[in-house]
C-alpha cells in the first residue's frame, strides 16, 4: 500500500465537487463509486452501525481485491472474504463476535494465505485514521511496543522522543480511498448526525478521500441547521447518500434496532460448520439471490426485525 504524497492527498479532495449539493442515490449507484483494488474504510465496530447494506451492494457488484480497514471486524468481514471481494484486511480483531467463538471463515482464508490479515492494536487503528484526518504522515503512541504485534508491522517505527527521550511507536496515517459509514440520519447533502457510540467514524470520514453514507432516514437541511452541534460529519466529505432503513441488519443501529440474534446464530452455525460451502450457500441465498435490500430484509423476516427494533428502541428505557 503506497502512501500517496501529501500534495496528492490534497489534490484528491480539491478535484471533487465540494459544493452544498444533493447527492442522494441508490445502493447500486453508490457501489459504482468504489473501484477494484480500493482501500475501503468501514465504519462502526463489531456488531454496531456496520454499513451492511453497502457491503452487500459491493459484493453484488463483484468488486475485487479491496483492502478493508475497520477498528474491529465482525461477520461483514466474513462476507467480504467469502465473496472474494477483499484480499487484505487491516484490523485489530476479526471474528463474528466473542459469543460465537472464532470465525472459521477468517481462519480458512487467512491460514491458507489467500487473504492477508494485518493486525494493529485498536488504538493504533484509531491513531492511523486520526493521523489521516489531521493531514500528517504519522502519530506517536505508547502501546504495541515490545510486543510481537509491533514486530509483525514494519510499517510502524520505533523512535526515541527528541524532547523527552521516551521510546515511542510511530504509526503511519491511513487515508482510505473511500469510507463506508452508516448513520441514524443525514440530509441530502451528507450532513450526518450520529447517535450513541462514534467508534473511529469521525476520524475515518475525515481521513478518507470520500465518504459513502448510508442512513436510516434522510432529514431536511433545515432540521440539520436547527441542531448543527449534532452534526458529526460535514457534507463536503461526503460523495453519496443512500437511504437504507435497517441498513445494518443483522447488526445493530443504536436507538433504532439491536442485532437480529436469531439470524446471527443461524449464520454463524452455517459458516463455521463449513466456511466454503456454508458461506456460498449463505451468499447465494441472502446476497446474490434477493432482488433488493428490502428483499434481503424480507428473508430475515418482519417478526425478527420488529423484535430487533423493539429491543433497540427500549435500551434507553432503563
Amino acid at each position, binding site marked *: 500500500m503506497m502512501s500517496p504524497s501529501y500534495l496528492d492527498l490534497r489534490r484528491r479532495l480539491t478535484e471533487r465537487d465540494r459544493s452544498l449539493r444533493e447527492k442522494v442515490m441508490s445502493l447500486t449507484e453508490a457501489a459504482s463509486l468504489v473501484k477494484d483494488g480500493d482501500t475501503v474504510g468501514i465504519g462502526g*465496530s463489531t456488531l454496531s452501525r456496520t454499513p451492511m447494506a453497502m457491503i452487500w451492494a459491493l459484493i453484488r457488484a463483484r468488486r475485487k481485491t479491496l483492502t478493508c480497514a475497520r477498528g474491529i471486524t465482525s461477520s461483514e468481514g466474513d462476507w467480504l472474504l467469502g465473496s472474494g471481494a477483499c484480499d487484505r484486511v487491516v484490523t485489530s480483531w476479526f471474528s463474528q463476535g466473542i459469543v460465537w467463538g472464532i*470465525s472459521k471463515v477468517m*481462519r480458512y482464508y487467512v491460514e491458507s494465505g489467500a487473504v492477508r*490479515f494485518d493486525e494493529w492494536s485498536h*488504538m493504533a487503528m484509531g491513531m492511523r485514521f486520526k493521523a489521516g484526518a489531521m493531514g500528517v504522515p504519522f502519530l506517536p503512541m505508547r502501546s504495541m511496543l*515490545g*510486543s*510481537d504485534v509491533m514486530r509483525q508491522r514494519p510499517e510502524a517505527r520505533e523512535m526515541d522522543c527528541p524532547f523527552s527521550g521516551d521510546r515511542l511507536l510511530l504509526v503511519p496515517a491511513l487515508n482510505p480511498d473511500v469510507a463506508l459509514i452508516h448513520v441514524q440520519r443525514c440530509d441530502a447533502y451528507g450532513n450526518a448526525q450520529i447517535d450513541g457510540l462514534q467508534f473511529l467514524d469521525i476520524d475515518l470520514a475525515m481521513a478518507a478521500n470520500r465518504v459513502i453514507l448510508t442512513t436510516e432516514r434522510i432529514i431536511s437541511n433545515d432540521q440539520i441547521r436547527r441542531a448543527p452541534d449534532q452534526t458529526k460529519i460535514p457534507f463536503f466529505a461526503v460523495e453519496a447518500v443512500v437511504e437504507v432503513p435497517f441498513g445494518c441488519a443483522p447488526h445493530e443501529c443504536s436507538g433504532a434496532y439491536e442485532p437480529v440474534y436469531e439470524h446471527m446464530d443461524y449464520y454463524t452455525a452455517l459458516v463455521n460448520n463449513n466456511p466454503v460451502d456454508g458461506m456460498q450457500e449463505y451468499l447465494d441465498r441472502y446476497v446474490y439471490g434477493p432482488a433488493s435490500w428490502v428483499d434481503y430484509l424480507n428473508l430475515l423476516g418482519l417478526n425478527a426485525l420488529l423484535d430487533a427494533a423493539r429491543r433497540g428502541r427500549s435500551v434507553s428505557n*432503563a
Partner: protein
Amino acid sequence: MPSTGDYTASELLAVMSSRLLEDGQIVFAGVGIPLLAATLAQGLHCPSLTILFEGGVIGPVIEPGKLPPSTNEQRCTIHANMVLGSTDVLLLLQRGYVDVGFMGGAQIDQHGNLNSSFIGDPARPKTRLPGTGGGNDIASLAQMIVAMKHEKRRFVENVDFVTSPGFLRGGNSRRDSGLPAGGMYRVVTDLGIFGFDDETKRMKILALHAGITVAQVQENTGFQLAAAPDMGVTEAPTDRELEFLRRLDPDRLYTA
C-alpha cells in the same frame, strides 16, 4: 457466608476477580467475565467504581439480563456518564486515568504475556486467532487483572506470540521496551490467584481456592510455579455474590 451450593468455574472466576477491585477505581473492562466481575463489584462492594468500555463508554451501569455481546454495542452505554470515540477512550489509558485493566485470556505465559493472535508459527499458523482488539493497548498502559480458565495448554512457558505484553522476558525487559507503566498485577483462575515476583517478574501462587492443592495447580501449568511464603486460601463465593451474578447473567451467556 460461603455458599453451600454449586457454582460453575466461570462464576468462581467472576466472584474472585470482582473481590480484587476497590471502590473508587477506574476499571477498563473487556467483555465476558471482566464485564460481569466489574458489574458485580459495583453492585456489592464498590458503589463508586467507574467502568470504561473500549467502544467508547465512561461509567455505565449494565442492566441485568441485558448483557452486551461485546463492549461495542448500545447495551454498553446504559446509564453511562459519557460516550466518546474509541480512540479517545483508549487514550485515557495512555494519559494515566485507568487504575485497572481487566481482561480474559486465551493463553498466558510465565511472565504474564498474553496470546490471542496465533497458535504455531505466525508465518504459517496452525490457528489464526481473532487478534488483539484493545488488549494490547490495555496491557501496555495499565496495571492488569486477567481472569481465565486454568489449563495446561493455556498456561505455557512462553507464548507463541506476544499479543498483549505482560513482563515480556521478565526482569526489566518491559520497562526497557518502552512500557514504563502498568504490568501484570493478578491472574485469577478456577484454581487460585497468582501474582508476579518483584525481581524476576515470574508468575507465582498467591492463594488457592478451597480444596485445591499446589500439586494440582502444577499439573495444570506448563511451567514451574513457586508458591508465595504466605500463600493463602480464598473464601468460597457467597450466596449474595452468586445471586447477583445469576440475576446479571440469567441466560448464562458468560457463566455457563
